[in-house]
Every structure is written in structure tokens, then in C-alpha cells.
């Protein structure tokens, strides 16, 4: 493996996830988070070379809605900026690529969006093709249910298996003060919640929620000055699958499998079990089981610790959910995870997904030591 540039996560801030912030617009939610992330790194806006935001105009309900975020990102004097209609985790990936190109040393990455202002199910229906799929009224819950059915048919997984996975997240999530859902729930309790879209029960799905997130990345040489315990990126890979749901095997995630193989190879990680902690962006327990299979994780094993944050089931804010997974691994490996800390964690895996049925997958391997010397 060719030596790459060592890049670290040096700061992460998020707002606690809520159903609806009645008092702040999306940009007003974002401003304190950007300030906090910069303050945690002990830097000013002038120390940032590059910035990139993840949001979606459809969710904002405004063409070029992302432009408003420039005013709260410390963008003056003018600097290089990019916007993705993607979760902030994908923005972090892009920033990492830019740092590999060598044209910036520090980057500020944000995710923002107010899910509560529009109707996410209608909006996300529009990301399907307009001829065959959007037209029949599919929304993220129904496509996730199609995927869950396909997975259960192939593997024999049962309703109880899904409930067990969801209960495990709920139990872990009670220790995370940033979560929207903080009440633990048992397998039995979740098994008795009504169907949302069969085979998914309401208790298996995250509520609609919103947050704002900011992460700061820095290359070797600067990272050490911005963070007492920088968390180094050892490997990463991003794969996109076909839009047409019928054209792929929904019972598996070929994209996550390949992204994990490539990211692990870059990181020199033999297998997932060699990592101490993993955070997966799974909006349903079926997605989580599919992702475990794709990454080679045994959900019943003690290592790696699976979603100690409670995962996306306890809070799934649009445009921030994936970046929170990456931020959680930063918190775990840099001694900032509070009550949910995994003891002596030195290596972690973060996963982000976007699109219907895990269409896009991004895998990171991170560690407390530099990858390349």
C-alpha cells in the first residue's frame, strides 16, 4: 500500500438530536456547533483552509439553501468551499481526498438540515426514479421493509432477531446524552410495537429528528497542535450502488462489502474483529444485520463493541447521522465518550450510508496512532 498523508479528526461537536427545534433555523442551530468545534481545537476560522457542508435543498425547502450556511461557517475572508447533497460523513471523505491532493491542511465539515420543516417521506420518495418507483409511493420505510424482507428470506432471520438488535441499540443509547431516544427498551417490548411497514415494527425505526454537526480534520503537523489526542484516518472507501432497487440484491450490501474490503486493506486491518469499536449508520435492525455481514462483524461477539452510542436507531438526523457515527469513533478513541466509553479503544470503524436500501456506503478505519510513517 502506497503511503498516504496522515490526516486526523481533531474536533467534533453536535447538538443533541431533537424532534423539532422550535427556536432556531438550521443555520442558527449550526452556528454554535461550528464555534464549539473551533474552540475545542483552540483555533480561529482563519486557521481553516477548506470547508464543506452536507445538507439538502429539498429538506431546506429552498433552492440553494446551503448558501445560508456560509454565513455561520466563518467563511470570511473568502475561502474554498464545497457543498454536497449528502450526509456530512461524505463531506469528510471529500475533505480527506482534498488533503491527499495536498492543497489544504485543515478542513471544517458540517452537516445540517431541519427535517421537521418539511415532510421527509415525500421528499425522499423523490430520490427514487420518477417512472416506476417514486410513482407508486415508495418511501424510505417501505423500501427498508423490502430490504428487510429480502434479508429475512435469505437468512432465516426472524422478527425476534430484529427486535433483539433494536433492543441492544436502545439499551446502549440510554447512555448517550445526545440521543433523541434515551429510554431503553427490551426485546419483548419492541416485539409488541405495531407494524410500521411489515416486517418492520415501529419500535425498530428511529423517529424523525434534527441536529447540526461539525467536524474538523487536520493533516499531520497541524493535527497534533489542534488536539491532545488526534484520531488518525487509517483507511476509507466509498461505494455507490444502482438506483433501481430491483437491479440489486437487496438482501446484501455489495457496496458496503466492497467499501469495507478496500478501507480495511488501506488500513492494514485484517478483519473487523481486530477493531475495538464500530459505529454503523443503520436506520433499521435489518440494515444493521446486513451491514454486520458486509463488514464481517459478528453481532454476538464482544469485539468490536457494536454501536455503543445507540446507533442511528436512537437518533437519525438527516445529513448528520453518518457524521455522528464518525464523530462517535473520534470520541471513543480520544477519551471523549463519557459513560459509553469502550475501555482501551485504539482502533475503530465508522460507517455511513445514504439513499434507499443502503445505496451509498462509506467505511472508515481509524486509530490512535498514525498509519504511515
Amino acid at each position: 500500500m502506497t503511503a498516504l498523508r496522515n490526516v486526523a479528526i481533531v474536533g467534533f461537536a453536535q447538538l443533541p438530536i431533537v424532534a423539532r427545534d422550535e427556536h432556531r433555523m438550521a443555520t442558527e442551530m449550526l452556528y454554535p456547533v461550528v464555534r464549539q468545534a473551533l474552540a475545542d481545537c483552540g483555533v480561529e476560522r482563519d486557521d481553516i483552509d477548506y470547508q464543506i457542508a452536507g445538507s439538502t435543498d429539498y429538506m431546506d425547502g429552498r433552492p440553494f439553501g446551503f448558501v445560508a450556511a456560509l454565513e455561520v461557517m466563518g467563511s470570511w475572508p473568502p475561502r474554498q468551499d464545497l457543498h454536497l447533497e449528502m450526509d456530512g460523513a461524505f463531506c469528510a471523505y471529500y475533505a480527506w481526498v482534498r488533503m491527499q491532493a495536498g492543497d489544504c491542511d485543515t478542513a471544517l465539515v458540517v452537516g445540517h438540515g431541519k427535517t421537521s420543516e418539511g415532510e421527509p417521506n415525500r421528499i425522499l420518495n423523490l430520490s427514487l426514479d420518477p417512472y416506476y418507483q417514486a410513482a407508486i409511493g415508495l418511501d424510505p420505510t417501505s423500501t427498508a421493509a423490502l430490504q428487510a424482507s429480502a434479508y429475512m428470506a435469505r437468512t432465516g432471520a426472524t422478527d425476534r432477531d430484529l427486535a433483539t438488535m433494536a433492543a441492544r441499540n436502545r439499551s446502549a443509547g440510554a447512555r448517550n446524552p445526545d440521543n433523541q431516544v434515551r429510554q431503553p427498551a427490551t426485546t419483548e417490548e419492541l416485539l409488541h410495537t405495531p407494524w410500521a411497514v411489515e416486517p418492520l415494527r415501529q419500535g425498530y425505526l428511529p423517529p424523525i429528528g434534527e441536529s447540526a454537526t461539525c467536524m474538523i480534520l487536520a493533516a499531520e503537523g497541524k493535527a497534533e497542535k489542534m488536539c491532545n489526542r488526534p484520531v488518525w484516518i487509517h483507511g476509507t472507501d466509498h461505494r455507490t450502488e444502482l438506483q433501481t432497487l430491483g437491479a440489486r440484491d437487496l438482501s446484501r450490501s455489495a457496496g458496503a462489502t466492497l467499501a469495507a474490503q478496500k478501507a480495511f486493506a488501506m488500513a492494514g486491518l485484517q478483519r473487523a474483529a481486530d477493531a475495538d469499536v464500530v459505529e454503523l449508520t443503520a436506520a433499521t435492525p435489518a440494515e444493521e444485520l446486513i451491514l454486520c455481514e458486509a463488514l464481517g462483524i459478528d453481532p454476538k461477539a464482544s469485539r468490536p463493541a457494536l454501536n455503543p452510542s445507540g446507533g442511528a436507531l436512537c437518533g437519525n438526523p438527516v445529513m448528520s447521522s453518518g457524521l455522528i457515527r464518525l464523530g462517535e469513533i473520534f470520541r471513543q478513541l480520544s477519551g471523549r465518550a463519557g459513560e459509553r466509553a469502550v475501555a482501551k479503544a485504539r482502533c475503530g470503524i465508522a460507517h455511513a450510508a445514504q439513499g434507499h436500501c443502503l445505496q451509498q456506503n462509506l467505511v472508515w478505519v481509524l486509530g490512535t496512532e498514525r498509519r504511515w510513517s
Partner: protein
Amino acid sequence: MNEPPKEPVKYVDASVRLPYHYVAGDHRASYLRALKDKKLLGSKCSKTGKVFVPPVICSPESFAPADRLIEVKDRGTVTTFCIVNIPVIGRDLPLPYVAASVALDGADISIFALIQECAPEHVHMGMRVEAVWKPDGERQGDHEDILYFRPTGEPDAPRASYINRL
């Protein structure tokens, strides 16, 4: 059914309707509420003292919080303007009319405003104008509460007083 239909469907209608229910934000909620009382509020940058109307929570320029609301005047200076000769959807006004940037007294940036009670060719940079409000009881707490701005008849403002507030 072995052959395609003779008259294929050429178009698919997809009517997209996306309703939104925007949060004004506490800052703007105060601003909008004040319009009912014929008051205009701005927010003051805690670092530079610059005043932004409508209020923003941080100065885009200094990046410092702008969390203190202060009242500005409902009169100001035309900083730049254009004469509209084509109809615009949602604005049912006799053509031509003037759309202007007006720097309110006490504000460091200008707002967009309609200029009436004045022939378009007489509008110019530096012209002093004042707000004409909807009558009492009719104001709703939105931007329609100001019907338009009209000339005050005062002498023009000196260029230096508005050139950095375009």
C-alpha cells in the same frame, strides 16, 4: 402482447407538492412581531458594533455573535435601485416601478424596498425615504406590513454616509 403498443405513452405527469412549515427562529420571531408595532429591529455585532437588519445570530463578516436586538429607524437612504419594466409573478404593480436597496438609519446593511409616490426617473442614490406602513389593526407581523417607501423630501444623504452600506 408480443408487440409494443402502437401508441406509446410519451409523457408521465408527476405533480410534486412539498409543503413546509418553517421555524422563524427566536431572533426573527422578535423582528416579525415588532413589525406589528411599526418597529424595525436589527441585531448588533458584539465585536464590531455593526447592525444587521433583518437580525442575524452572527456577523457573517466578523463571525462574532450578534445576539443583541436594537431598534433602527423606519427611514433611510436609497443606496442602489433598478426600474422594473417587466411583470413579476406575485407582484401586481403598475409598470414601471422601482425596487431599491434602502439603508435604514442605524443599520449597516440595506434591505430591499419598493419605492412609490415618486416617478421612477426621479429615484436616485442618496435619496431619503421613509416607510409607509399598513394601517393599525391590519399588520400581520410579516414583510407586507411595510407597503412601500416614499421620499421624505429631505436633502440627499452624502455619498460617504451610505457607500459602504449598499
